[in-house]
């Protein structure tokens, strides 16, 4: 009993920690995009923190569940009650908390909209893709005067007038190109960001189609990793396997909505009049349920073998 409650305490701590880290990190990224050289920017913005927290919390809860699996690997002798608590927490998150949070997000304004109108500062060289720009001064009536060095090939330099809004980078997310190289997400994080956007968008879409559709989307395969957590006798290997399985399940679910293979499969089902399978949420459901059953089976076989070894 004590262990089960301690596990709940661990879950709460993990949720708070992941929520704090992800909120601070994402807010920091958002605010860094608004930085302009030589101008101060307040990095404390509670409205933004709250908005980010609401968006990040579903993911934090899922990661906290993953953290619980690591906890179970570290402490393999767990009680039935702890297992029961794990599944109660997991089901509560997927069936109630996430849908509720997603519906709250729909009512939210886009992030940091009030900051978008920042303009560049005077007196700095700014390297863009094809030129180096220097704003010497802003005109009171709008626009600015400065110098542009064409670095693409010719190296031609000339005095120029900048547009009224002085937005140097085209379709750039950042306010000042000076910080582009530092604040641009590294490729590995870009993958993570793309996945988060995908998961959030598809979850909201599924929820909009109805709760049953959302259940098909959720299909709880990530929770079933629990069954294969102690497959190896070295705990560290189990950690790596759990991470690999977690990433693989996310990847497979992502592919259902984007890969050519699944497009062909849907075409095939359409051709053969198997209409239930032409819905991607249904395919996702079948795949996730198969994964869950597979993991349950592996876990069961492993459990029986371990028991036999002990006897």
């Amino acid at each position: 009993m004590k262990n089960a409650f301690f596990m709940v305490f661990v879950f709460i701590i993990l949720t708070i920690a992941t929520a704090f880290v992800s909120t601070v990190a994402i807010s920091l990224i958002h605010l860094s995009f608004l930085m302009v050289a030589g101008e101060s920017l307040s990095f404390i913005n509670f409205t933004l923190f709250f908005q980010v927290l609401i968006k990040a919390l579903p993911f934090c809860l899922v990661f906290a569940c993953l953290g619980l699996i690591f906890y179970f690997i570290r402490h393999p002798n767990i009680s039935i009650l702890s297992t029961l608590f794990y599944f109660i927490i997991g089901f509560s998150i997927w069936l109630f908390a996430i849908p509720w949070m997603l519906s709250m997000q729909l009512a939210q304004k886009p992030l940091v909209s009030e900051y978008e109108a920042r303009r560049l500062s005077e007196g700095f060289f700014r390297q863009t893709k094809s030129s180096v720009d220097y704003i010497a001064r802003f005109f009171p009536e709008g626009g600015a005067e400065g110098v542009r060095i064409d670095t693409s090939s010719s190296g031609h330099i000339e005095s120029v007038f900048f547009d009224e809004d002085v937005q140097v980078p085209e379709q750039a997310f950042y306010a000042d190109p000076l910080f582009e190289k530092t604040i641009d997400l590294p490729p590995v994080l870009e993958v993570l960001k793309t996945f988060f956007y995908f998961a959030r968008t598809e979850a909201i879409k599924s929820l909009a189609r109805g709760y049953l559709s959302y259940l098909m989307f959720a299909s709880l395969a990530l929770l079933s990793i629990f069954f294969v957590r102690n497959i190896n006798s070295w705990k560290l290997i189990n950690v790596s396997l759990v991470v690999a399985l977690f990433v693989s399940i996310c990847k497979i679910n992502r592919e259902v909505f984007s890969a050519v293979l699944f497009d062909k499969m849907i075409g095939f089902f359409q051709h053969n009049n198997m209409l239930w399978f032409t819905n991607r949420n249904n395919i996702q459901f079948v795949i996730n349920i198969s994964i869950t059953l597979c993991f349950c089976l592996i876990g069961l076989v492993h459990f029986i073998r371990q028991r036999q070894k002990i006897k």
Partner: protein
Amino acid sequence: MKIYKHVIAVILIYLLFSFVGIGLFVFFTSPVPEEFASYATQYKIYEALLVFLKFLPSLLLSAFLVGLSWSFGRSDSEKVERFSTIRVAFFKNVIALSFTCIVLCMLSSEVFIPLLQNTQENMENKEKNFEAYLLLAAESAYADDYIYAKYYIDNALALKPNAVEALDLKDTIDIFYSGMKQKIRDREMQEQVSSPISVQDYGYTSPQLMERAREAFLKEDFFNAHYYANLLLEMTEKKDGNRQEAQQLAADAWNKLQDNPTGLDGEQVLAYETKRKGYVAFINQEFEKAYYIFSDLKTAYPADLDIDRYFLLSKEKMDGKYFFSNEVEDLINFEQYKDVYFSVKKPEGGFFLLYWKGGTAKEKAGNLIQYLRELNVFSYDENKELEFSFSVPYAKLVAFPLEQTPQTFQADMHKRFKMKKESSQFVPFIYLVSTDSEKDGLYLGPSFSYEREVGSNHYNSLLLAMPFDDFLQICKASLGVKVMPLTVLASFAKKADSYGFSKEVYFQTFMDRMSYPFVLLIVLILLAGISWNYKLGTETHFKFVWLITLPLFTFILYFVLETILYLLNLSSFVIIGIFGGVAPWVYLLILCVLVLLSAIIFSALRSD
């Protein structure tokens, strides 16, 4: 309790396999860009090394994690309590192993990766430079300029020692070069014997000048007699006792100069008259005219001491105003800096904005001289309005002693940069006008593209109100902030915004590079904690096949490390925003606290 054995074994085995694996993978899959076609194998080797070094931190971290987890399982770890003696021993071992990993990672990021990238860049330029050197060598040889020809062909052969075409050309050049060197040696010997007069006329006292003038007059060397007498009159005050005699001697010498010496043929008379014309131009401070007259005469009469002397004197005067266009011939192939730009405040208010396409530092002159190709200057007044802009095809920048600048300039430099009037203090001085060394009238100076008041700007030179060291740092910054030496980066970050660069970017890069070993140490200690928590069971038999999961850890840790470094980079902006110039110290303090915390976390772990 030693835990090195397993960790070192795993690290060595894994690094070896990774090196071979990555090497083979890159070697057989990486495409070779067209410009590296002739160095395909070399390029692939460097590319494979670069990929290996890029992954080195995560390779080391994963091997460290797995090795330590194995090692902890094999040590007597069942009885370990929090902060116990055995835990302290473990911690010491972990720190020792961490330092080894950190040293390897630092060597990789600060030495080997920049070195390899540099080598790859050089390879790209190698072919291009070889062709250029070969062409220049052939051209110089064709123009009988064997000193240059020898220099170029040696450089070409340094790049490609076995190139047949270069070796053939070298043989031809060497024959002529040896003959020419002998001639030069003979001429130098001759000059040493017959040239007692030095052009160094500084530091003479009034009696010494008078003595020299008298001596020259007696030898019927009227040019020098007049010159020294005139110099005395220029240098001394009116009450000087020698002035009257000098005046008389100058007048007598001048009268003598008007008469052509007897016994000369037609050509010699013409030469004497031209010499006199040149001397008159020199005395009247028309140094350009004097220079070209004596330059022509020197070609025809190289042994004439008067001509040689006044040629050197007028060249000395020319050097103070112009530089010669032959100084910049072919420099484009040897440029060290490309696309350099910065802004610099003017003492009288406003600022200059400078940009040049390529810069060549004269290394023999201790980098105190630099030639700037296609220099563009934009001048703004104190209201940030454009006053004028001009460009010059080539400019010569020299380190100019601060003590020789105007008082107001010195006061401004002292106020803004705390520069004292010492001889070791220099500021950049740019010669904007170049001229031909032989032909008069070929001046190349500023070409104005904009003038607020047309015709009011005349610039032969430009004095920049900045320390010369700052100028050198700007040149280094143009090569890229990531490859700047860390000490230069730290020093330049403080003043970057004075020259139009973002202080935040330079401080952030400095903090990023400075924090890297600390971040690695924190991650390694925390990984040691994970190794402990998920260690191999004491009863469990280790299977080598488990090591195949190592690449999985490598990818996970690569992702983790990239994320941590990225978020720390962004955090450093916050610290810079709050603490400004002391941000690196604050950041260092935070990192030290994090190291301490991770050490406490590791030491507080115990057995199950």
